[in-house]
């Protein structure tokens, strides 16, 4: 187990294109850090630089206190799970898992290798498949074999490169919890690359959001969701994504296509000196007037529902609107960054599943202006970010994390044989 420190890491290709640009990140011992971003943001490149499969153009990469920039992958002692598992097709599951152990001749006796592989296979519930070849396994089983190969080494850290993207939705959910459980049990430092924000929010102690090779924000999932630093992070985290509305700043309010936001002290200082801002409101901040108690400060507005999507646990309603010319370009650019198609501008509202609203209905909706974020249309910066609150959320996350690890270690010490895996060392 180790800490990994990235300092001003740059990856530049021959043509001068910087796939990763000046990324600094400290990953603490035992921490689970997610690298997330849309395709082409450099997250996989960054991971491959950590493991040593890509050269580092400039910057420093340290594992614990060793500078490993120029070390070969084998000397870094990291374990990696590849996106398509990269299992050795000519070896059985047992030999696949044992592969890393057999490389150092004579270091481990056959008995010890056998014991270690069996411990890993028990943890991953692969015992009955040990004699099979990867070709005969299901996707989820192959994935577990790849994880087995990673944990059997007792490496200094685990690296995952989109390990679940080849699985179907149900299996993905199961494996996600499996990975979380495994990491908690072993307490091994983990770096996990994904483009799936559900994985990012559920798995990570901290999440690092990348955009075009540049690190945007590193924070706990809650802090990321509640206090995004800019338009990109706000738009990327959350599903359905945050609604971005054009807001014209007036004397006493910000006027949006869906009602007037009164200029409270918080907003007044945020928008100071600007005529146009982008107002960001999460879909779950909206409510139907008929189905909830409306607080005094709520902003109400009438909307004609265009399309509804009923999902069982909630209902999404879509309300088209015309964007303001001054912010349209910025929002289109953002949409492209987020792999969107730039279709139409519409408000997404997440309502109670019991709501009877259907396509074409007129509804009166409300939202709490305190839940609205205000962004600078030029820089995309979040003008209403509450740094103190964000810090508190991060601290809370760190504490929860520490407790989880302690719990797992206690459990392991008590001799919970089935889960007391290689870790200890």
């Amino acid at each position, binding site marked *: 187990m180790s800490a990994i420190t990235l300092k001003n890491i740059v990856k530049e290709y021959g043509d001068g294109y910087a796939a990763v640009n000046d990324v600094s990140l400290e990953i603490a011992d035992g921490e689970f850090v997610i690298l997330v971003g849309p395709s082409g943001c450099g997250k996989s490149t960054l991971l491959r630089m950590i*493991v*040593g*499969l890509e050269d580092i153009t400039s910057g420093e990469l340290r594992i614990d206190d060793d500078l490993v920039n120029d070390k070969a*992958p*084998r000397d870094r002692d990291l374990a990696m799970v*590849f996106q398509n*598992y990269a299992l*050795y097709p000519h070896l059985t599951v047992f030999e696949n898992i044992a592969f890393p152990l057999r490389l150092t001749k004579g270091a481990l006796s056959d008995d010890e290798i056998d014991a270690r592989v069996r411990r890993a296979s028990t943890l991953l519930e692969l015992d009955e498949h040990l004699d099979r070849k990867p*070709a005969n396994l299901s996707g989820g089983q192959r994935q577990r074999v790849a994880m087995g190969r990673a944990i059997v080494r007792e490496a200094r850290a685990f690296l995952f490169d989109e390990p679940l993207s080849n699985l179907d939705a149900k299996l993905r959910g199961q494996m996600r919890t499996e990975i979380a459980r495994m990491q908690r049990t072993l307490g091994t430092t983990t770096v996990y690359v994904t483009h799936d924000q559900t994985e990012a929010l559920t798995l990570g102690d901290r999440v690092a959001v990348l955009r075009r090779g540049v690190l945007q924000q590193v924070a706990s999932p809650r802090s990321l969701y509640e206090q995004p630093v800019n338009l990109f992070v706000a738009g990327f985290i959350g599903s359905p994504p945050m609604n971005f509305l054009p807001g014209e700043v007036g004397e006493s309010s910000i006027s949006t296509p869906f009602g007037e936001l009164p200029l409270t002290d918080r907003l007044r200082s945020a928008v100071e000196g600007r005529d146009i801002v982008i107002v960001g409101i999460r879909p779950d901040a909206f409510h139907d007037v008929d189905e909830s108690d409306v607080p005094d400060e709520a902003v109400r507005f009438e909307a004609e529902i265009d399309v509804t999507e009923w999902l069982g646990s909630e209902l999404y309603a879509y309300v088209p609107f015309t964007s303001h010319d001054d912010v349209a370009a910025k929002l289109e650019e953002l949409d492209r960054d987020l792999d969107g198609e730039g279709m139409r501008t519409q408000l997404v509202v997440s309502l109670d599943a019991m709501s009877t609203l259907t396509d074409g209905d007129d509804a009166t909706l409300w939202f709490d202006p305190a839940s609205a974020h205000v962004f600078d249309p030029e820089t995309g910066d979040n003008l209403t970010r509450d740094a103190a609150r964000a810090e508190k959320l991060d601290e809370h996350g760190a504490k929860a994390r520490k407790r989880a690890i302690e719990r797992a270690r206690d459990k392991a010490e008590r001799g919970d044989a089935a889960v007391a895996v290689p870790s200890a060392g």
Partner: protein
Amino acid sequence: MLTTKQRIWWALGTVAVLLYALFPVAAIFATSFKPSSELTSGTFLPSSPTLSNYESILAGDAQELFLSSLRNSIGISVISTVLASILATLAAYAIARLDFPGKKLVLMTSLAVSIFPVISIVTPLFNLWRTIGLYDTWPGLIIPYMSLTLPISIWTLTAFFRQIPWELEQAAQVDGATTYQAFRRAIVPLAAPGVFTTALIAFFIAWNDFVYGISLTSTSAARPVPAALAFFTGSSQFEEPTGAISAAAVVVTIPVVVLVLLFQRQIVSGLTQGAVKG
């Protein structure tokens, strides 16, 4: 899934193709057991099977002609196969793995070489070989054989190497393997079946060649079996050597059959399945 009707048609088709392909082989096999008096009898099976034809090529009159040519054929084919496989493996590995200028040129040149008609080169080669002293020697046949076996080896191996997931090599390196260990333990086991298959194809090309064999040799010093068969004679000028030729043909088929049986497990394709999702 095939319906019953489709299956019947497939079975019929397969039987027809097998009959068409194997009947001549069966006929040669049957003929090789016929005494010379029966060669023109018109029956398929010999009425009194005899081993005299085999005796004549392995121990009798034609022994020297046949055994020396068999030795030549085996030696020349094996050497040109081994050389072609080594060179083609290196070339294909580079073409599949690396990006270097002239990559296309190598592939295109080898393709061009392979479509060049053999018969058009053989006369100039005959003159050249006589001048520089390669005529009627083993190297004199090995070199032209490699011009036949190398292009096809390079092409098949390149195609084969391209579908090896190189991520395995990286995975092995991350698992703690040295570059050599990664190659040896993760890539070679996957590449071996491709190399075997290619070598087998190359061997058969060399083994079956007739034009170079008959044009570039004159004595038993280097003459391979396909060429030597043309020099078989009957026991008198009124007798056709058909029986002896059939027996020789059966004998030279044996190594081919043995090779295929020996390596068929290595040739099993689809070994790479399961390495990556798919």
